[in-house]
């Protein structure tokens, strides 16, 4: 240190200013390099001010504030912006201050944070608040301290610095007077819509309106009642119309359904065509349902096949009878109307479908 002083003393007067400037630059450089080498210093607890919250900022900072509007009514909102700017290197940025921790603020204002409007870059930080003056006694947004830590000061406990944000004068007017007709001593809803004066008369007011909620009883009734009714209907129908029921049952057989449909169509044809079609339908049905191997069977072949399937003698007899009648009708010179043959064919199909040991089981 003494060497530096001796050097300053010895050098010519015109060089002293330049030398001092160079020394300053050197010390600034050495200081920051040493900080970078050491990392962010840990501010000591000792010496930290207790009269206001610490911003956790480390560096050197300036604070400015802005309020808009500054003329307003009591309880109306104003936007209060606190802008912190760094003077040099920033080792730790400032944190958002809670203005409620400043008694002056919490006594004078309702405070709402608008943190979503905050902004920051490398060297400046903007914090936004919404303040509402509690009453007309509020004359200004008070000054408040911004406390930060400046490293490099010895001893370190003296490194805490305070910048005071300036106070901002406000003009707070009382809220508007309640207009006549809306005050407590007048009939308040005098401008109410006519529907407010519409009262309903006795009969409707004494009605008991059920609030039908989703009670399990109602849900149960809705779920169970229709199927129960339908089941009853079906059973009654079965009892009242057994043939219809039987037919419906047999129509479930696809082959039978198709055969019955073709038989109904065959009724519209001429006698010769009708006989041929009815025989073909029954043969096809037997081939499909009972695996009859012959495409144009004789009555005897049909009987043999059905006997092999252990069908009842009555059914076999009906089938044989049908094929005999069909042969007779086909080979007569002038065949009569074959309504009986069609009915016989329909009856044969229904009987086969009604067989207790259903042909479909084979």
């Amino acid at each position: 240190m003494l060497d530096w002083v001796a050097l300053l003393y010895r050098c010519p007067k015109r060089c002293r200013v330049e030398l001092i400037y160079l020394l300053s630059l050197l010390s600034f450089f050495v200081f920051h390099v040493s900080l970078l080498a050491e990392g962010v210093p840990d501010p000591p607890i000792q010496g930290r001010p207790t009269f206001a919250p610490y911003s956790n900022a480390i560096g050197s900072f300036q604070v400015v504030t802005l309020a808009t509007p500054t003329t307003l009514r009591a309880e109306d909102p104003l936007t209060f912006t606190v802008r912190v700017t760094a003077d040099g290197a920033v080792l730790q940025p400032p944190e958002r201050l809670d203005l409620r921790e400043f008694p002056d603020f919490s006594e004078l204002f309702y405070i709402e944070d608008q943190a979503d409007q905050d902004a920051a870059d490398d060297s400046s930080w903007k914090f936004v608040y919404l303040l509402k003056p509690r009453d007309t006694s509020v004359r200004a947004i008070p000054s408040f301290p911004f406390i930060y830590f400046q490293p490099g000061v010895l001893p370190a406990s003296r490194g805490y610095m305070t910048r005071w944000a300036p106070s901002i004068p406000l003009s707070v007017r009382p809220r508007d007077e309640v207009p006549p007709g809306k005050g407590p001593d007048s009939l308040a809803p005098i401008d109410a819509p006519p529907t407010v004066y519409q009262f309903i008369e006795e009969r409707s007011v004494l009605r008991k309106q059920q609030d039908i909620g989703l009670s399990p009883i109602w849900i149960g009734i809705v779920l169970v009642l229709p199927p129960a009714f339908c089941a009853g209907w079906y059973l009654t129908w079965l009892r009242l119309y057994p043939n219809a029921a039987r037919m419906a049952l047999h129509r479930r057989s696809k082959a039978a359904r198709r055969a019955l449909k073709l038989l109904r169509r065959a009724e519209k044809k001429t006698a010769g065509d009708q006989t041929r079609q009815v025989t073909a339908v029954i043969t096809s049905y037997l081939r499909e349902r009972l695996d009859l191997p012959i495409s144009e069977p004789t009555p005897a072949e049909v009987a043999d096949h059905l006997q092999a399937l252990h069908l009842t003698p009555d059914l076999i007899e009906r089938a044989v009878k049908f094929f005999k009648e069909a042969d007779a009708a086909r080979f007569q010179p002038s065949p009569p109307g074959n309504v009986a043959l069609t009915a016989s064919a329909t009856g044969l199909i229904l009987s086969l479908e009604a067989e207790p040991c259903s042909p479909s089981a084979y």
Partner: protein
Amino acid sequence: MLSIGLLSSLLLASPDADAAPPSVEGFLTRAEQALNAGLEARDDPRLARAHFRDAAHLYEEVYRNGHHNAACLRNEGNAALLADDLPGAILAYRRGLRLAPNDKVLRKNLAFAREQVDYPTVGTMGRPPTETWPPGLPRPEAGWLLISAGVLYGLGCLAMTRWWMTRKTTLLSIGLLFLGVTAIPIAGLVHNLPNESHERQHPLVVILENGVLLRTGNSLTYPARYDTPLNRGVEARLLFMRGNWAQIELTGGETGWVSNDYLLFDKR
């Protein structure tokens, strides 16, 4: 023996011993008289308000005696509104709309009552939910949805049964169509179910006074959770009760504790 004799003599001597309890018809007649008196006394606001207040209380008595209907609640709400009892009017209209969601007059009057509430100028804190239901479209009521579902389901079952009897494919199509359409009211019911359940668990409350702060705990020693005070007529849902304090939730999800003295409860 002596005590029995004393008791019987007291009962006999009581002037109200043979007086019949006031009937619902009696409440209603008095309510209508109070209404007429209020309308006639419009030049004297204080007197008119007193009459309307009486009418509102009497309609509430009619309602409490089991006559649950939207007409009674509409009259009660109108009387409360004319009596400058904004919280009472809002609560009555809300209860009425629960019974008759499609009552346009109730909805209009509720909208007017809400216009009278002094909501915070900034933000949506305390404001009622914004209406999202398309105008003109009837609102589904749980009862009607259940009836519709039942009718459609029944018709579907009938068509399917007839199809089983006759095997006509047209009936099968009709049955399936009905059963498919049944899904619409069922979907409505399922959609309403959480709301209904939430409303039953967390009944409506209305702020009675201006400047009520939501606190972080159930005592005045707790600080205010929000700086924005709530004014009379603000609607909320009751979450918990502890002593003389209630924890409430505003429409926007803000919660806090309020003394019961500042709340009007919806007692179903």
